[in-house]
C-alpha cells in the first residue's frame, strides 16, 4: 500500500478531521440541547452548554403522561428481545439444515430465500395488514414480534456461516458415538455457530429497535407503541398544539440513541463480520 508522506499526509488528515466533524457535530448538538432548559434552547447557541438542566429534562421526560416513555422503552426492548431470540433460533436451525444436509427440496428452499431478497418491503405492508386483520394479529404485540422471526437474510447468513464453521467430520464422529441429528445440532452445530447467532441477534435487535412503518400500520393503542413511533407522535403533536414538546423530543432522542450506540460499539466485531459475509457472497 502506498503511504502518503509530507503534504499529502496533511491533506488526508484534514479531510478526515472534517469528515469526523460532519459526523459528530449533529450528535454533539443533541447532547448539548438535552441539557438545556426550554428558554435556553431557543436563546443560546446550539453548540455550547448553558445552564445544566439535564436531570430536570430527564425527570420531565419520564413523568410526562404518567411515564408513557418508560412504557415505550419497555415495549421496544420486549419486541426487539423476543423477536431477535426467536429469529436466531429459527435461522440457526434452518441455516444449519440447509448447509449440512442434502435432500430433495433444498434447492427450492434456497431459491425461495434468494428470490425473497427481491421482494420490496413496501409490497407486503398492505396485504399483511389485511392478513393480520383476518387472523386477529392486528393491534397485538405479536404483530411486532412474529413476522420478524422468519427473515430470509438471517437464514442465508446462518447457512453461509454453517458451511464454514461446522465440519462434517465432527458430525460423523458424533453419529458414531450414537448421537441423533437433533442432538448433534443442539450440542455441536449450534455451539460452533455462536458467532453467527450473535450477529443475527444483534442485527435484528438493532433493526427492530429502529423500526417505524410497521408499528405505525399495525399498532393502534399508544400503550403498545415502541419508542420510535412514540417520538413521531410527539413530533406531530408538538407542531400542531400550543404546548411545545421540542425539549421532550430532544431528551427522548438522546435517551433512545445511547443504548444503540453503546451496543453497536461494544459488539462491533459481530455486525461488521455479518455485513462482510452479506456483501461478499
Amino acid at each position, binding site marked *: 500500500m502506498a503511504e502518503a508522506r509530507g503534504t499529502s499526509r496533511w491533506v488526508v488528515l484534514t479531510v478526515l478531521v472534517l469528515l469526523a466533524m460532519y459526523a459528530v457535530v449533529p450528535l454533539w448538538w443533541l447532547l448539548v440541547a438535552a441539557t438545556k432548559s426550554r428558554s435556553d434552547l431557543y436563546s443560546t447557541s446550539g453548540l455550547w452548554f448553558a445552564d445544566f438542566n439535564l436531570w430536570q429534562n430527564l425527570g420531565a421526560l419520564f413523568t410526562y403522561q404518567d411515564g408513557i416513555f418508560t412504557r415505550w422503552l419497555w415495549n421496544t426492548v420486549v419486541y426487539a428481545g423476543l423477536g431477535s431470540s426467536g429469529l436466531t433460533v429459527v435461522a440457526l436451525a434452518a441455516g444449519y439444515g440447509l448447509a449440512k444436509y442434502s435432500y430433495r427440496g433444498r434447492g427450492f428452499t434456497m431459491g425461495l430465500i434468494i428470490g425473497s431478497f427481491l421482494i420490496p418491503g413496501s*409490497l407486503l405492508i398492505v396485504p399483511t395488514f389485511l392478513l393480520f386483520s383476518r387472523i386477529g394479529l392486528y393491534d397485538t404485540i405479536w404483530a411486532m414480534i412474529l413476522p420478524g*422471526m422468519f427473515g430470509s437474510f438471517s437464514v442465508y447468513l446462518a447457512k453461509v456461516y454453517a458451511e464454514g464453521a461446522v465440519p462434517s467430520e465432527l458430525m460423523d464422529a458424533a453419529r458414531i458415538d450414537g448421537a441423533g441429528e437433533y442432538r448433534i445440532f443442539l450440542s455441536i452445530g449450534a455451539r460452533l455457530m455462536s458467532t453467527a447467532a450473535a450477529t443475527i441477534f444483534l442485527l435484528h435487535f438493532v433493526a427492530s429497535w429502529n423500526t417505524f412503518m410497521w408499528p405505525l400500520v399495525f399498532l393502534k393503542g399508544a400503550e403498545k407503541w415502541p419508542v420510535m413511533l412514540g*417520538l413521531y407522535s410527539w413530533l406531530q403533536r408538538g407542531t400542531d398544539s400550543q404546548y411545545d414538546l421540542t425539549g421532550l423530543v430532544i431528551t427522548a432522542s438522546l435517551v433512545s440513541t445511547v443504548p444503540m450506540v453503546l451496543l453497536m460499539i461494544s459488539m462491533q466485531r459481530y455486525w461488521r463480520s455479518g455485513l462482510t459475509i452479506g456483501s461478499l457472497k
Partner: protein
Amino acid sequence: MPTTTSAGPGAGRAMGKGAAGSPRTPRLRRRRTVQALKGASLTFPFLVGFALFVMVPVVMALRESVFATRSTGGLGFGGQTVTFVGLDNFAKGFQDPVFWGGMLRVLVYALVAVPLTQLLSLACALLLDAARRRTAARFRVVLLLPYMVPGIIATLIWLFQYSPAVGPLSDLFRIFGLELNFYSGDLVWVSIGNMALWGALGFNMLILNGALQSVPHEIFEAARLDGAGELRIAVSIKVPFVRGSLVLTSLLSIIGTLQLFNEPLLFRAVTPETITKDFTPAMMIYNQAFQVGDLNYATALSVILAVVVGVASAVIYRSTSRGQA
C-alpha cells in the same frame, strides 16, 4: 469394498465411504434418508413462518389488486360489496398523475443522490487508503457513529439542525449572508439528501476501504514499474477492484430510495406545506390504504411500485455489468 458386518456404531463408518453392494445397503440407505429428513425438518419452522408472513401476503397482494370494495349503503352505514374488476385498479394506477409525480420525484432524487453518495464515499475511501492504517483505525469509531444512530432519530436530529428556531444551520448560513429555509420546496431534497449522506458516508467509506485493502500489493508495484502515478493507480486499478461492491451497495440504496417513506413522513410533521401526503409512492400507498381506506387500490399501487423497483434494479444491474465484461 468395505464389508461392515457389525451393526451399531461401526455401520456409521461405512456410510461416508459409500457401501454400495454390501448386504447392509438398504438399511444404510434408509438411515441416510432418515438423517436427511431430520436435517430438512430443521428448516420447517422457517418455512412455515415464511409461507405465512411472506408468501401469503404476496399472493394476497396479487389477489386484492384485482377486486374493488364499494359501500352499498349511504354514508358507510350499509354493507360492502366486493366485485372483481380485473385490471381496473392497475389502469387507474398507471394513469394516476399524483402517483407518477411521486415516482418521478424519488427516481430523480435516487439518480442524483445515490451516485453522489457513492462517489464521495469512494473518494474518501481512496484517500483513507493513502493514510497510514493506524490513522484510519483511529477515526473508525467516530466515522461510524452516524450509522449507529437509529434512522428516525437521525431524521429528528437533522430536522432540528434545519429548524430556524433551534437549529444552528440557519445562523451559520446567515454569517455568509444567506437566508436559507431548509424546509422549503426548493431545498427539501437537498435537506433529505444531506441527511442520507450523513448516515451513509462513513459507513460506505469504511466498507470500501476494507475492500481496497484486499487488493494484492504486487499489482501496485508492477504498475509503478510501468511508470503509473498514484492517481492513475487509483483510477485504473483500485476503482475496478471495488466495482463489484460499489454496484451492489448502489443497487441496494436505489431500491431503498424508491420506497422512501420514513424521512419524508417526519418532514411532513414539521412542514406539511412542502411535503404533501402523496409526496413519495410509498407515502401515497400508505395514505390510500389507511387514510382513504381503499385497500384494493393501495395494493395495486404496491404491485406497480414493486415492478418499478424490479425493473430499475435489472436496468442498473445490466448497464453496470456490461462494461465489466
